[in-house]
């Protein structure tokens, strides 16, 4: 999983490579984002929720177990209360988080592969193929995704609507925007001399793409992958909420579906419908914050701006202190004159 490499960089790692600690950054290290408070927040959010989804189901009980204490608020025994049929909301949340992460990852990988194929290969080959791929991409971009997904899911009978079906449908409707980004980036990389050199020296096209072009696109691909994961989790949650998700799956969307159908809203059971959505929102926010840092790798101008701003703030502070010191000196001088 080279894609999520920037996201899994440990804080200590990134701090070492910060601008102050190591002025010269070389090779692969320059692909890692620098540590900022917001990146730390993002990593903690993403890491925490991922751990919760991975390990949570091991510690919580059976999410489907029915008890005779329906719709009780958070308590010492059930931290997030119970559902209408007395099921443990925390246990459901842990299993649902795992399900949502699973589909997010699956769709993220599929969509990234699709967008890489149409974006990079099309831009590399150029001419007619490029025009055709671009047209194809733009058409998919303007056709609204979710209504299409709803129609497709509506036609697939419920029994055959498995995890993979939903994943493929979400990937097919969600790759176009990243393909356009990758297309633009590939066009600029393709112009560079070393690419021409390797072409002239008789390298095969796939080798030029994989060895010469792809490494330069890694940060862009990583950022598009992160976007695809967010979009997939959101899209799946929407589909499941309206009852069109994968059958027999437990995701955050299906939790909201059951909460809605169990009248959680009109009964005021906020502990039932708030946690699933909040988990999605916080996970998405964490990924977006990580993406900001990846953006700084792609576009160093953004990083210069941040560092410039920090230096400007420091300079302003120094100036104020100097001014204060100077005024103190002048008043002291005046007093000694007297």
């Amino acid at each position, binding site marked *: 999983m080279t894609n999520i490499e920037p996201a899994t960089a440990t804080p200590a790692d990134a701090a070492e490579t910060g601008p102050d600690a190591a002025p010269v950054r070389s090779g692969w290290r320059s692909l890692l984002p620098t540590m900022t408070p917001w990146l730390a927040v993002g990593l903690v959010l993403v890491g925490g929720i991922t751990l919760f989804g991975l390990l949570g189901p091991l510690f919580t009980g059976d999410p489907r177990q029915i008890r005779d204490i329906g719709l009780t608020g958070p308590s010492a025994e059930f931290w997030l209360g119970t559902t209408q049929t007395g099921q443990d909301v925390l246990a459901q949340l842990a299993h649902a988080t795992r399900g949502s992460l699973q589909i997010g990852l699956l769709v993220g990988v599929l969509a990234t592969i699709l967008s890489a194929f149409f974006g990079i290969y099309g831009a590399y080959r150029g001419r007619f193929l490029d025009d055709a791929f671009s047209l194809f991409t733009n058409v998919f971009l303007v056709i609204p995704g979710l209504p299409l997904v709803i129609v497709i899911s509506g036609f697939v009978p419920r029994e055959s609507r498995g995890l993979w079906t939903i994943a493929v449908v979400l990937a097919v409707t969600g790759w176009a925007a990243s393909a356009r980004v990758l297309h633009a980036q590939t066009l600029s990389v393709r112009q560079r001399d070393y690419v021409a050199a390797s072409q002239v020296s008789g390298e095969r096209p796939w080798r030029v793409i994989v060895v010469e072009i792809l490494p330069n696109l890694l940060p862009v691909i990583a950022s598009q992958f992160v976007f695809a994961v967010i979009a997939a989790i959101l899209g799946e949650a929407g589909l499941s909420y309206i009852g069109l998700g994968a059958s027999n799956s437990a995701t955050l969307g299906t939790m909201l579906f059951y909460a809605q159908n169990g009248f959680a*809203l009109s009964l005021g059971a906020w502990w039932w419908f708030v946690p699933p959505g909040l988990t*999605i929102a916080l996970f998405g926010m964490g990924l977006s*914050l990580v993406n900001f840092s990846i953006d700084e790798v792609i576009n160093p101008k953004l990083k210069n701006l941040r560092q410039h*701003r920090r230096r400007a703030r420091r300079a302003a502070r120094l100036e104020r202190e100097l001014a204060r010191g100077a005024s103190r000196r002048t008043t002291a001088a005046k007093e000694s004159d007297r």
Partner: protein
Amino acid sequence: MNYFLRKLSFYAVALWAALTLNFAIPRLLPGDPVDILLAKLQQRGGTVTPETRKAYALLLGGDTSDPLWVQYWDYLKNLARGDLGTSVSYYPAKVSDVILTSLPWTVVLVGVATVIAALLGVLLGAIVGWKPGTWLDSLVPSTTLLAAVPYFWLALILVYLLARVLGWFPLQGGYDVVLTPGWNGEFIASAIQYGFLPALTIVLASIGGWLLGMRNMMVSTLSEDYILTAEAKGLSPRKILRSYASRNAVLPSVAGFAISLGFVVSGSVITEQVFSYPGIGGRLLGAVTNNDYALMQGVFLFITLAVLGANLLVDLLYGLIDPRTRARA
């Protein structure tokens, strides 16, 4: 080729692709609508004879004995006449009539909400980006939370807080049911009151993207030479902000309208479900649960048409406000 001609032809291709997709989806997917409907009938205890099967097939218009290209041609011909078939769930209403009664609700709701979100977001983004590094600017990353919130969940939260706990707004619906729809003050006031929460949901969920995009463009525009020149000329900061920086920074936001509109429409389809809003999203979901395939396809077609039309409009407008796009063509 002329910029406008090129845009028009692109949208013609996109339209054709959408129509063809709409034709192909039921024929490519494993489930046969007739089988699904017959299975439902059997579950309810009905008897299925070959005649029933034939009747259903005729009702759905899927007389599969014709070769594919004949079906395709008939489909296009029917579309050109505006005939989308008959709705099963609103029998005997025609699909186009069902859609036309619910379309204005969605168009007004999504349109107004999108315009408000875009204006507010661009304005706030311009103000925040004008002075990068202030405390306001350092809060910008927190808007990603808004962008990552599922629309329908935000709607649930708003309904819970503002409608159920505080009781400021009605829980659901599009207007007070005791009123008859029409162009009178009372009805419009009721529609605004009922539409406020859905609109607020869309605005809140989509404003973050506009704000962030505008802020980033603003920051990079400020380092341009013409801004320096304007400052050196001694123009007032307000004038530089208004006529120099914002006007150039807003262009990508306009160009990015296409992608954002798709997101908003997708989000509002499910949001309508939360509010039981009488719009087109509710019709689409109703059609899916009732296996009303003709209505389902009709709604998809209309949503796609609306999105394509809005994008075409924005693209043409973009050609007018940014002469460079026309020159490059």
